[in-house]
């Protein structure tokens, strides 16, 4: 039993937390439908939808043909006319087939029509490397969508946020894109029961610190927290910010932190060039926080290469704990 007012929490995996959010939404709101490839009886390629089809039927948990452009477009059209679709791309890489509908239609319809409509579609993108699926199944393309006005783009790193951001996305009248790291699906954490929403556009300070700010996204948040723990033992006090939302970006939280610490490392899995860390760095470099910077801003992003198959190579092209640790130590020692 919980104390009154304190919400009950349970230990859930990230995938379970997402499923719970969908379950709540399906139960509460007849307009909610799930769409995607093999999300029905198969339960989704990563078992995120699980057995929801048994509870809600094939009319609400809809297996689409392998037609990403058309499927996403159907979700857009349905959102425009009264449904609340949650569309799953089986791997975020396949969204490259659907950019037209996401970017030209979902993102722009409201604006192009002078505000006459809105497109409350939610799309989910299992992303990232680490599963040995090679270059066409391992990309992190969230920066693309972060570049597109009209969309909102989030990257939950914890089960609690995975649930809360999905429910927030469903409440949102505009299209919300959720990038989920495949390696996080099995990660566990405390998740409040029932309905709650994690605000879109707010970063979370996962660890306070005075010596440097590490802004991380998605799975890199977990790595950064590990690093911060090690650094603590070395007398270095790192603040770790989980960006959570990459469109809009929580400018205030990041800038306030940098003003306090004077040092910034950005850690992200997407390709370094033009990745999310580029924006964070540029945002700080053009702000009044610039004057507080005591050293160059370091970015640790993915290598300038597709993701290789061999597991050792695969690890080598995305930032790992030792890379972050090394960068943080060098920064603390004024070696950047």
């Amino acid at each position, binding site marked *: 039993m919980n104390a009154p007012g304190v919400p009950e929490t349970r230990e859930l995996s990230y995938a379970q937390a997402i499923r719970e959010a969908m379950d709540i939404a399906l139960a509460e709101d007849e307009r909610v439908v799930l769409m995607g490839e093999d999300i029905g009886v198969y339960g989704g390629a990563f078992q995120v939808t699980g057995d929801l089809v048994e509870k809600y039927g094939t009319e609400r948990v809809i297996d689409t043909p392998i037609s990403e452009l058309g499927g996403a477009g159907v979700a857009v*059209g349905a959102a425009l006319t009264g449904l609340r679709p949650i569309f799953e791309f089986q791997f975020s890489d396949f969204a490259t087939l659907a950019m*037209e509908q996401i970017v030209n239609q979902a993102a722009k319809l409201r604006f192009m*029509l002078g505000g006459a409509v809105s497109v409350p579609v939610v799309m989910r993108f299992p992303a990232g490397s680490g599963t040995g699926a090679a270059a066409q199944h391992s990309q992190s393309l969230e920066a693309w969508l972060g570049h597109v006005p009209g969309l909102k783009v989030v990257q939950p790193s914890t089960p609690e946020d995975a649930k809360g951001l999905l429910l927030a996305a469903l409440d949102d009248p*505009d299209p919300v894109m959720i990038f989920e790291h495949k390696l996080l699906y099995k990660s566990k954490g405390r998740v409040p029961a029932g309905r709650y929403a994690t605000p879109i556009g707010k970063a979370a300070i996962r660890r306070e610190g005075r010596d440097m700010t590490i802004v991380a996204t998605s799975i890199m948040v977990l790595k950064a927290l590990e690093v911060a723990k090690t650094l603590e033992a070395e007398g270095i006090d790192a603040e770790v910010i989980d960006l959570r939302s990459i469109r*809009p970006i929580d400018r205030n939280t990041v800038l306030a932190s940098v003003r306090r610490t004077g040092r910034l490392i950005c850690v992200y899995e997407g390709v370094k060039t033009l990745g999310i860390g580029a924006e964070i760095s540029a945002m700080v470099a053009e702000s009044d926080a610039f004057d507080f910077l005591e050293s160059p801003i370091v970015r640790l992003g993915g290598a300038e290469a597709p993701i290789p198959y061999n597991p050792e190579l695969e690890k080598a092209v995305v930032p790992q704990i030792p890379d972050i640790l090394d960068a943080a130590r060098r920064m603390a020692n004024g070696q950047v």
Partner: protein
Amino acid sequence: MFDENTPYAVRTYAPEVLIKALQKMYLIRKFEEGAEDSYTRGLIHGTMHLSIGQEASAVGACMSLTDDDKITSTHRGHGHCVAKGADLTKMFAEFFGKETGYCKGRGGSMHIADPSKGNLGANGIVGGGLPIAVGAALSAKRLGLDDVTVCFFGDGANNEGAFHEALNMAAIWRLPVVFVCENNKYGMSTSIERSTAVKNIADRAAAYDMPGVTVNGNDFSAVAQAVDRAVTRARKGDGPSLIENLTYRWRGHSKSDRNRYRTKEEIAAWQARDPIVRMGEMLIEHGILDQNGISKIEAAAAATIEAAIAEAKASPDPHVDQATRDVYSQSGAAA
């Protein structure tokens, strides 16, 4: 009273309904001419795609639709918009980039929409509206409404992957959507013979196990008949259909077209098959209007368009400091 030679439209619709249809066809013609004229006068900033010659397709296809039924349209969408009941002043205002336009000057010719009348909008992306139409039909089915969606698209669009994916999904889910292909023989400069492996686009319906029919798209009655049947079928829950209206655009693709890919003779031959003239002849033949009545309708349409243009021209421009309004539902919600 009617015999087997009486056209479907005359058999089916009351005289005043047919007169209204003719009025709409004239309004479209005059709208397009007014648009062209405005362009020549420098009132239009961008490009535009005129549907002169295709009026029977737009009006015929919307005959059995209510305001709850949806349409999705194309870059060549003025006719569909008028047929679905749009306000002409608001259309011109949009065209002139005015705050009073359908899109508050943000969309222009290629994005005019009128959700209040079920018009989900023109689209700048060839084939872009096809999956959206299927989505609208999915909504109707899921929400238990008996709305039907009519999805307009061109012959050029039929080679987009979106066409294939959309028709397949509509078919497997038996959705209430009618695909209306306006085959005007060219996608920009590329003839259907050079772009498309089949002769009739309706032949592709078989690949989606749905009825496909090719009709004379300049014959209002033929279009109305084919679409009515498909709409009835869709409303009953029997799924989608594909209808191909053979028609022709008299003008170039857009304002930058030098018409190098078709002959003057071809254009003249099609102009001789004017769908509006044909509609007028049908109404005269069946005693619904006389030539004088038709002339009055034409004159009234011209006057209506002139007034719409004047009113639209005089209406206010958007405020430049609101250039980024309406990106999100709650302003200032994002970056």
